[in-house]
């Protein structure tokens, strides 16, 4: 079970979190994207071996959506930051 270092609450077990998918996927402008581009946003995901940027919600904690760098092979966790700060 992963031990996720929440920047707000400190290290917490994975069971407190909800996985939210690939954090690199950005919502395109709906008024300015083709059907193909939009469908890719909705349906196409990579399944990388190694470094991955993931969204996790600390649902049993501070309720921050986090962007977590995780190695999908070793589970090593790199940087962890609030998604909100990431984009502002």
């Amino acid at each position, binding site marked *: *079970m992963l031990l996720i270092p929440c920047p707000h609450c400190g290290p917490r077990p994975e069971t407190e979190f909800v996985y*939210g998918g690939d954090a690199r996927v950005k*919502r395109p402008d709906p008024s300015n994207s083709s059907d193909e581009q*939009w*469908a890719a946003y909705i349906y196409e995901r990579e399944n990388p071996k190694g470094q991955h940027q993931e969204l996790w919600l600390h*649902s049993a904690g501070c*309720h921050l*959506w986090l962007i977590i760098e995780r190695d999908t092979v070793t589970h090593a966790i790199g940087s962890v930051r*609030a998604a909100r700060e990431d984009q502002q």
Partner: protein
Amino acid sequence: MKVSQPNRTSKGGRLIDRGKTCEFQFDKRTILFHPGDSIASALLASGRPIIGRSFKLHRPRGVYALGTDEPNALVTTGFGPSLTPNQRATVTLVEEGMSVSGQNAWPNVQNDLFGLLDRARSLLPAGFYYKTFMWPPSQWLRYEGQIRKMAGLGPPPVEADSARYAHRNVHTDVLIAGAGPAGLSAALAAGEAGQDVILASCSQALGGGLLNHQNAVTDKWLAEITKKLEALPNVQIMKMTTVVGVYEHNLFTLSERVAMRDGRIEGQPEERFWQVRSGRFIIAAGGIERPLLFGDNDRPGVMLAGAASGYIWRYGVMVGKSPVITGADDRIYAIARDFLDAGANVRAVVDLREEPGAMADLLAAEGVRVERGAIVARAHGRRRVNAAEVWRYSKSGANKLELISTDAILTSGGYGPALQLHAQARGKLNWNAGLNAFVPVDNSDGHISIGGARGSFDFDTAISEGLSAGRNEILPAPVLSDATNVPAPWDLPKLSKGTRFVDFQNDVADKDIELAAREGYRSIEHVKRYTTLGMGTDQGRAAGPIGLALLAAATGQEIADTGVTTFRPPTTPVTFGAVAGATMGEVGHAIRRTAADKFHEAQGASFIDAGLWRRPRFYKANGATVGEAYRTEAASVRESGGIIDVSTLGKIDVQGPDAGIFLDKLYTNRMSSLRLGRGRYGLMLREDGRIFDDGVVFRIGENRFHLSCTTGGASAVFQHIEHALQVLWPGLEVYVTPVTEEWFAVAVSGPLARDLLANLLPDLDVTNATLPLMGMVETTLFNRRLRVMRISYSGELSYEINISADWGAALWQRLCELSSKLGMITYGTEAMGALRIEKGHITHAEADGRTIPDDVGLGGLVDKKKDAIGIRSLSLPFFSEAGRKQLVGLVVGDQKASVPIGGQIIAKDAGSASQPSIGHVTSWAYSSELERTIALALIKNGHSMVGEKVFIVSPVMEESVEAKVVDPVFIDKEGTRIRA
């Protein structure tokens, strides 16, 4: 009946208390034991050779090993609520009065009629069941039941477990698995360095392999280090505790067998399941002794030689009085000496090596028969070994030497490191030709193997590795023996008859593996699944390496290239009870109760789960059965009115300068244009365009909104909103708070709803002018803030009254009094369901994660001129293709018929030839107003099928009813009632 312990030695036994003799039952016979005995040692002492039957062939089997590697001696303990099957007799301690039974046999393990299967051995090769019972495929279910009767483990318990279990979570600096010389040394070094240490010993005593011998030097060392460790407060010694799982980020699970270790103490659990986060993990799990391959090597009386010695020194049990000991290293001479000292008549030591050296000469000089360059080729005797067939075997040839009569053949195929924990921790393995074993590669990832688990079986090396590891120093390269003349345990020729078993528990023999190779299996993972090699409770500890070597030989690969199967938790079986811990029954299933729960119960409510909430499904006063009650309740709501507790609906407070803009992005329709004190029904979509949830939004302040959502969707909706706010539009200034628990809510519905409201709040203007449909007023009751929102789910004139939750019970009570004076009733979710079906309102049965707004007739709520989550997806081409399932109503031909559960819709009668389903029923009810059964359904192109006849069928239930497709709104299409 006279009971004795014929195989108990006259003295000794480190783990037992000879001062006390107790009794337990094995297959209804009384067996004597001393406290500290395992089931296996007690049964061996009693002289019973047969303890179990093998999985497939039902061959008689005795005890083979000493610990968790035991493949044969599986037993069932207890009965009724304490029944536990598949206990390994070698690691389960006996208790006074315990009831133990053999398993997988009928009528018992001594005389098992299924033992006839063994005679058909040649007919039952690897993959027999797959190959034979494939045809016709439809019959597999029938065969399976029969096969399961014959091939299986113990019976599953039928009654609920009476034992208590507990969980504990801790953090520590160092976790050490194993309490042999290496583990103890590591614990001492780490403990003296001030680290917090947990030392897990799967035995009831410390010492590991040291317990299997009598040696003044090691015994003294053990006594001293034990004393030192016990004096260290930061070292927690956990006996009868096994590290069973290794997980990410240094999480480990431990199974602690509390009752077995401490006895049954009131209030103490049977087992405790630990989750330990440890900075470091030191694996000192020792080695695993390997069997030798020869004919009928599974007979009761054939045993691992090291284990046999262990029984002498641990339990004072001599497994044979005239043993033959065979192997290929000097260890067999020490074991022979153990037996001589215990008073046995050692018949022969059969050494595979032609020139074994001094140890052999010494023993021979004492008059013990030593055969050099010889092997045991077959065990004779069926129910118990009675002779060893010994052959002379060398490079120049082989010839049969003699049949040596014996009561035990003790075999030593050498030791390999216990790799389970290292491999679970994703450690790498190297093949070591000297040991004929895979050994762990040292790992810098927070875990390290030491001692026997690293291949360092030497006492002094184990200690020095333990001390280094405890101090977190880098270990010197392992001192592994060089390639020697020691033959590998699998490298023996088949010289005689009899099956040579590799995996005893699953009856996998050498020829099964060869057969698998001939049939094209190359991967050890595939061979494992095909032959069931290593799939038993012992997880192939002993069988694995041999199976691997045989596969390598059969396929012409190197062993190193064949690899090993994946090791997964748990390393030893863990009971479900331990994993569940205390989270059983009500503790395991949290119940959320609304503020009026006590009153519902007093009013005779029958409850139903809605997520974690429990809600009144119906009130028994309104009918004896749910069917009767909801019809009465629904009819009363339409005639006069009723009240229902709707506190469970999700409620979310959204405020901030950008709240309106934000809600426009969440809902398909526009919420920013709401006037203060007005509400609007809204749809939320997932980004892929499917309906996610629905509810009503009220503007309760200039920059403040109150959202409601479905009971079941509440937590997911909150996550969805948080995602939109933090990830999609982080620039908006909006604050979101879930407030479901803060409010108690009652819906008041029916023609008399306004009268009830006026009686409750005499000062409130309840006219349409002040409180129209989708209007809201705030007032006070009991000096508390009260919100009245005029919304309707039932299709009647209806208000939802919200009050602070701690005054909910009072509000409910007041409303009950006032409503009964008006002749109104309380109603439950079942009637609510019937009312909303009549009105054609959707729930998650219709918004099932596949439907889009157009499918359920709510396309008009989508404002395509703006961007909200999911809207862009609705214009993807496939959503406008024909053939989508659309929401329709159904009136059932037979007015009183019930609708088959899970009913599928077909166009022609079920009696005609098989035909595709064109849709399914999503919900149905008996409509008291229409006096007939109605349903909502999703049917392909349903909107264009209004007026057509269809059939609702359930092939499983063999049911079929006729129905007519109609508009999904059955009553008051114009909405005059809700606006009354």
